[in-house]
């Protein structure tokens, strides 16, 4: 019987392994290696996800003293020659310096994806009472100003393998902005979906982009817009709130649909209750980011610390600083107020860009916005954008 072994193979081949490899190496040229950016995949990565983009304000349209639309074009002087393409629903994180504070704010893009290829983005910004950023922007930004923004970001977008063919959009107030982008993307054939938009405003005068929506809806049968007024009544408008009955009235019959919502926290609270009545599977319900978290003391699991102020000691690379902070502000906000630049994008606990290490001290993270990874809990990692100090804390923050 034949022996089962590998004695038929020549062990001496081993001796030639390195010499024959060296021969192959020697037969190749000593040319410089192609730079990574010459590969197709790297080129696309760079085009879609630039580290940052410098843009110039080309146009300011005031819809009212409290709502303005800004059109941005590439700031070629600062090296941005093209704008990154995006998916409808995504946002830009805008960098601002207000007094000594350095901060960022996420704003949904209201222009269409194809517009980015044509060289512009639009952001529509509404004043928030007492809001540091919106007040600054509305009172200061003017044509010709240069602004630094992030690459387009965010997961509030249409996914054909996940979402139903028809999306029922629930928009409240300035939450309308991403839906204008969706409508434009559908009209241009960039997104293959239907959009039935239930757009809630207080009065007829508060409706934004009415002419634009009406025009798009008229030219594209995949888009329908229903104006819903909570404190007014007008012809061709619904009155009241975004209720389950209203959704049922306009949603397609006998086929699944997805609900996408964007608006203030109060709208989410109300709409979630209404959607529960419809018995939709959770895969068919999507929320845009919740936005900055305020008033943790309203939560039952929050215990107010004895002192309203605390000290945050922060290490960025090898520089250590201490700042005095209010326990009512998130750690991110306190650092920014003190001029410490912190990486941040979504500011809603989700994206993890501000991922930082808590070295010591106690903190409170509202469960509803706690987007940390499982292992982060074991190793003391936090997202400062939704974390409140409960006393003195020390943290390590990545450089911006």
């Amino acid at each position, binding site marked *: 019987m034949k022996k089962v072994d590998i004695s038929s193979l020549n062990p001496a*081949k081993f001796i030639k392994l*390195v010499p024959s490899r060296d021969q192959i*190496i020697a037969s190749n040229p000593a040319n410089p290696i192609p730079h990574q950016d010459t*590969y*197709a995949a790297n080129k*696309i990565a760079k085009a879609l996800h630039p580290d940052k983009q410098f843009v110039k304000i080309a146009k300011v349209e005031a819809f009212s003293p409290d709502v303005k639309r800004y059109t941005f074009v590439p700031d070629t002087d600062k090296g941005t020659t093209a704008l*990154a393409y995006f998916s409808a629903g995504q946002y830009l994180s805008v960098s601002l310096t207000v007094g000594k504070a350095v901060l960022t704010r996420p704003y949904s893009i209201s222009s269409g994806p194809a517009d980015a290829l044509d060289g512009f983005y639009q952001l529509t910004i509404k004043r928030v009472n007492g809001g540091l950023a919106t007040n600054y922007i509305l009172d200061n930004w003017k044509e010709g100003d240069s602004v630094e923004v992030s690459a387009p970001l965010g997961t509030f977008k249409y996914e054909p*393998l*996940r979402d139903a063919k028809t999306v029922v959009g629930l928009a409240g107030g300035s939450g309308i902005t991403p839906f204008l982008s969706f409508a434009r993307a559908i009209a241009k054939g960039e997104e293959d979906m239907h959009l039935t938009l239930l757009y809630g405003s207080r009065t007829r005068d508060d409706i934004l982009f009415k002419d634009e929506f009406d025009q798009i809806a008229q030219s594209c049968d995949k888009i329908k817009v229903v104006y819903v007024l909570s404190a007014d009544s007008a012809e061709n408008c619904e009155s009241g709130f975004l209720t389950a009955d209203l959704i049922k009235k306009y949603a397609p019959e006998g086929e699944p649909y997805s609900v996408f919502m964007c608006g203030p926290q109060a709208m989410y609270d109300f709409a979630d209750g209404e959607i529960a009545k419809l018995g939709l599977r959770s895969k068919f319900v999507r929320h845009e980011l919740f936005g900055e978290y305020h008033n943790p003391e309203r939560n039952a699991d929050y215990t107010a610390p004895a002192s309203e102020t605390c000290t945050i000691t922060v290490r960025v690379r090898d520089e250590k600083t201490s700042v005095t902070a209010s326990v009512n502000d998130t750690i991110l906000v306190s650092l920014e107020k003190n001029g410490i630049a912190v990486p941040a994008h979504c500011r809603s606990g989700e994206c993890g860009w501000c991922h930082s290490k808590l070295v010591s001290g106690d903190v409170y993270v509202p469960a509803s916005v706690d987007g940390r990874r499982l292992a982060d809990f074991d190793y003391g990692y936090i997202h400062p954008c939704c974390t409140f100090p409960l006393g003195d804390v020390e943290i390590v923050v990545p450089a911006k």
Partner: protein
Amino acid sequence: MDKHYDVVVVGAGNGGLAAAAVTSQAGFKVLLLEKHNIPGGSASSFKRGRFEFEPSLHELCAVGKPDQLFDTGKLFKRFGAEVDFRYEDNTFRAICTAEDGYDVRMRAGEDNFCDDLEAIVPGCRESLKAWFELERGDQRTLDYIDSKNGKPNPLMMILKHGNFMRDTSYTVEEVQKALGMPEKARNILNTYWGYLGVPTDELNSFHYMTMVASYVRDGAVMPYKRSHEMSLALEKAITDNGGDVWYNSEVVKFLYNEDGSCAGVQLKSGEKIYAKEIISNVIPNNVYAMSDIKYVPEKELRLANSRTLGLSFVTVYLGMDCSKEELGVEDYTTFISKYANPRECYNHRNEGAYYVVNCHNVAIPDASPEGTCMLFYTIPMMEEDFPKDLKPEEYKKWKNSVAKRFIEDSEKVLGIDITSHIEEIEVATPVTFARYLGTPAGEIYGYQMAGWDSILPRIMAAPTDFTVKNLSYCGGHAERGDGYSCAYMTGMLTGDAVVRRLKGGK
């Protein structure tokens, strides 16, 4: 002001983490620089809705059990990095839909594995046993070489360790054929080829055997809280040792002394950091691009030009709104192929000839909320396979079309409905890996482990391949090739060598 360290490690991937852990443990002043904001490179996690996805790990090998640790397990123990590992019972299910195809499940454990394969291919047992025995012999040879500090007696090698010399010189299939292993048994045994990215008629026998034996015999594990858990455990080990870890700190330049030795690195912020030793977890190609070309040795350029970039992938992550039972998936790993032979699968990879479907919840039942489960598709893609003329604005449609094709194919092959249960989806492609890892063409496997450039010649030639003083390399592009455990090992071994040099040894 310029900063000075004993050791600067560039890149906090698996190799960089291990290298920083070793050197900081030895008491040196160490700085680990990472361009992303979390450690691990591919070894991390990401969240979508109610799901936290594992981005890249299929199974970690060579961990062992607490009472008998193997190399990777020992490495974590050495650094005091505690990880909650979960063990798997089966190695894989392999479905080949070709005419001469099969649908087999292989249990873990050498005896189980041999029994299972014998039942499928009667008469293969003896050759399979001999194959595993060869692998054990190889390990004895490695112990011997170790005992001689890497300088074995050539005569002893020929007299006592001839099989090791054969295994490291021949391909997987040459060795299996010499053992008389039937073709079908070879094809099933060689199912794992994709994890090393080279078909088994070219892949080195020793390399493949080591990996398979480790999966089959020692059992494969998954970290309970995704790979992010392993990376944070290692990061903690480094900072506990007094090492510094800086995130969002991209290196854009390697600095050299007049004599050609490496002096340090420059960050994107302009800051220069000098060190006695620089360890790069970044692939040499990128280091050359960040170096004044006059300091790059000619041989290194020739070597890089002679190599093919390793595999990248399209990976699809699905959060399902039903349990694995409702879905009808019982296996953690299912390999699906259209051809039985690995070379055919490799040649037809662009037609969807070979891919892997993992269900995380089989290994870790509570990895996602009750009533849900997660699926993870791995589809190999080489640099040359990526559509060259794709425009950025066409990218999303392209990646979704690839994902759709494989989801639908797996529905047919497995006879289950996946599409209507997708609650979350993310599709990563070479573009995604190029974005997060910064690798050329988004490669993940470093350089292809081609027949001429296999593991042993790489290890033996390393001292003459890379000759820039004070600069060394670790990671998936290094001697041992891709894979978590290999990347960790090269990081540790490179770190050990650096420690020896810093202590004045050779």
